[in-house]
């Protein structure tokens, strides 16, 4: 039984349960609708994160280099990163559909659908769960000649550009986040995890099978802090920041 029949059976079972009937779920074969990334490709859909959170304004970007990611346009954050094949759109395009697609294979959850750029009164202040108070506005994206998007949004009065490229060998991605102008006390959260360990010039995200390198680290001075029993990797956000997310294997 594959994913789609699981999906179908789950729906039918849920429906039967709610209807109080005892129908036997009948497995019907559904031809999967697989989206391949033979060139740079983008697909918007709902995307579900671990723990059940649904990203409603998700934009997944696929690469022929077989590294793909999902960007949350509600928060300006990269939420998923994975290797292999791109997307399964069966949940969205079979029958009525539920509006969602899902990565093919296991994706690393690089974000939790919270704003990546936030203002912190002190370095002990917590990040907020949403964009309230930031004046956040998604502004869309432009596509370059190769079909790669550069995302745009406004937050704390700044226009932000957010672009991601797959590293040629497929080891990971390189992100560039650039403000137009600057504002005080803004921080970019590069990672949030149980443990973040600085090792061999990398920040190893211990429980997530990936590492982060920050360009111009000496000037930017990234901070690892422990807050609410998690660790966070922050960079003061005053000008363009370039960092890479690398698969650990």
């Amino acid at each position, binding site marked *: 039984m594959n994913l789609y029949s699981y999906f179908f059976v789950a729906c*039918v079972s*849920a*429906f*039967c349960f*709610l*209807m109080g*009937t005892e*129908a036997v779920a009948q497995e019907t074969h559904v031809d999967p609708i697989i989206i391949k990334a033979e060139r740079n*490709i*983008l*697909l*918007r*859909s*709902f995307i579900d994160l671990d723990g059940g959170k*649904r990203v*409603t*304004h998700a*934009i997944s970007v696929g690469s022929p280099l077989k590294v793909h990611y999902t960007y949350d*346009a*509600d928060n300006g954050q990269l939420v998923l990163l994975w290797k292999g094949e791109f997307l399964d*759109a069966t949940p*969205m*395009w079979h*029958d*009525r*559909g*539920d*509006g*969602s697609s899902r990565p093919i294979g296991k994706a690393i959850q690089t974000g939790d659908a919270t704003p990546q750029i936030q203002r912190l009164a002190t370095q002990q202040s917590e990040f907020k769960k949403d964009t309230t108070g930031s004046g956040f*506005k*998604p*502004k*869309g*994206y*432009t*596509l*370059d000649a190769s079909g790669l998007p550069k995302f745009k949004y406004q937050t704390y009065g700044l226009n932000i550009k957010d672009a991601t490229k797959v590293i040629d060998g497929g080891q990971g991605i390189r992100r560039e986040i650039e403000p137009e102008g600057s504002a005080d006390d803004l921080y970019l959260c590069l990672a949030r995890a149980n443990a973040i360990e600085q090792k061999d010039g990398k920040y190893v995200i211990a429980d997530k099978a990936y590492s982060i390198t920050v360009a111009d680290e000496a000037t930017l001075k990234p901070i690892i802090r422990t807050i609410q029993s998690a660790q966070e990797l922050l960079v003061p956000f005053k000008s363009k920041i370039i960092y890479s997310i690398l698969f650990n294997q």
Partner: protein
Amino acid sequence: MTFILLSITCFAQAESPKEDDYFKIMKVSAPEGAILEVGGLCTLPNSDLGVTTRRGDVFIVKNPSSLKPTFQKFASGLHEVLGLAYKNGSFYCVQRGELTKMTDTDNDGVADDFETIYAWPLSGNYHEYSFGPKLAADGSFFVTLNLGFPPAWWNPKSLVPWRGWALRIFEDGRIEPWAAGMRSPCGISMIDDQLFYTDNQGDWVGSGSIMQVKKGAFMGHPSSLVWTNLPQSPLKLTTEQFFAKNQTKMIYDSNGNSVKPENDVNEKAVTEFDMKKNFPELQLPAVWLPHGILGISNSEIVKIPPGSFGPFAGQLLVGDQGQSMISRVFMEKVNGEYQGAAWPFRSGFQSGIVRLAWGKDGSLFAGETNRGWGSAGEATEGIQRLVWNNKIPFEMLSIKAMPDGFEIEFTQPVDKKYALDLASYSVESFIYKYHSVYGSPPVNSQKCNVKGVHVSADGRTARILVANLRKGYIHNITLDGIRSQENYYSLVHPTAYYTLNNIPEGKILSLAEVSTRNSSSIKTLPRGQSGSSLSGKKTLAAKIPTYDQVKGLLAKNTCLACHNAEKRQVGPSFKEISTKKYTVEELISLIYTPKPEHWLDYSTPMPPMSNVPKDEVTKIATWIKSLNK
């Protein structure tokens, strides 16, 4: 020769022309392998056609009316795009979660700039479809937002602002919540720079209809009222105020779960017209489109432009997804509010019609999809084109409300022998319930006596005096006996549905000015195109009726809108129903109180059909049972 043919025609009562003798459905050839589940259509100034799909593509179709149109993919990867507009060189589309401006900045025929004009919240419910944009005269945009359907689908919810609302959005991203009370507002439309829409039958929506959407209006479905406390809301009516005046059933079990409410045939029917006395903000339908007759899931409304479709220019056409058809509407304003008449116009499209757009050549493009809902047309998707052949069908052109009845205008002069005979006219009125039950049977039906008729000297209008006119009711006006003067044709569509929100003031005709002749007591009427029933002879035969014997009943009671004898349509085929081996009594009970939970494989629930008379429902049930052999 002509004379002989004509004589034979009259003598044999052969068929009068039908829809397809005037309006041809043409195909719009698509590229091999393209999946055109159309969600949006718009014609560009250069006569190209913009098309958006549920799979997130945007195409520009060049020479769309030619035999070989060419499709250019302008954009892709968007989230279920259910509408498209064009303004100042850019396209604007509505995705599930935002209004997006798409521009081809380097003129290579492909969009490279996707600007979010405004992103609205979503809960992530599958049913949070978003429709539009429609361009207002000032360049601002209107969008309409579906309610979410939780697992208790009979009780849809507005899970985040502004689901169930229409929003006005400005180019700079400002929004103005415009109106609340929408259920499933797929049919967002702009008519003469005014916002209109069609909604889809379900709870609080007894049948589809055309409604004007004024600022601050409440369109009838209460779930969206949860946001009227937000400062931007132009509407102040609260959920509590609404339910304080409604005795309708919102049932919860001991665990607080919503229980599906069922139609109660014994209760006194409450209508929207009744409820408007409590809530002046409640917007009544301008023109009802009776469920199962003029569609089951109405979609886009378009106005027929000057020079198109002959005598019907200036009237409205309305698409329908489930019945794969188009209806025609004549609207007039009485006491400052729209009302008017609706007719079937053209059936037989290949799939469910979601969008309509006029080509520059005066033909009408229909954008189609039926995925997830089913439709009378069996194709899953596509684009078709409706073309008029410049011949004028014999139809009712318009019906206007009069203080004492209706004035009916025809497209061609009528034969006065029949037009002056009251037996040629029949009028009844009915309405739908306004309640939390999914759909409504027609209720409070009454026969309206036609007391007299005055036919104009040119034979183009007939003014009928009708007893028992009821404000707030749909009056179905059937002219089976009317014949055209020239060739004795019957009307292509002999029944109209006039929504009488207001009865105008004015001069009343006296009985001295009208014909009161009624031949019906003397002889039976000449039958038109469809009356060839021989059932009289067969009443003594088997108790189990044949398909031919029940076909008329199935059509009359609108069963055929969703069910076919053999094939799956919106609902299961009668044959498939028969395989469940229900008894006749069970079948009757299920027709009156359907149990959609018996049909998990079908996505559109059936409304209660308690209007089907007992003798007819028995025949229908007996016939269905007989199909299982």
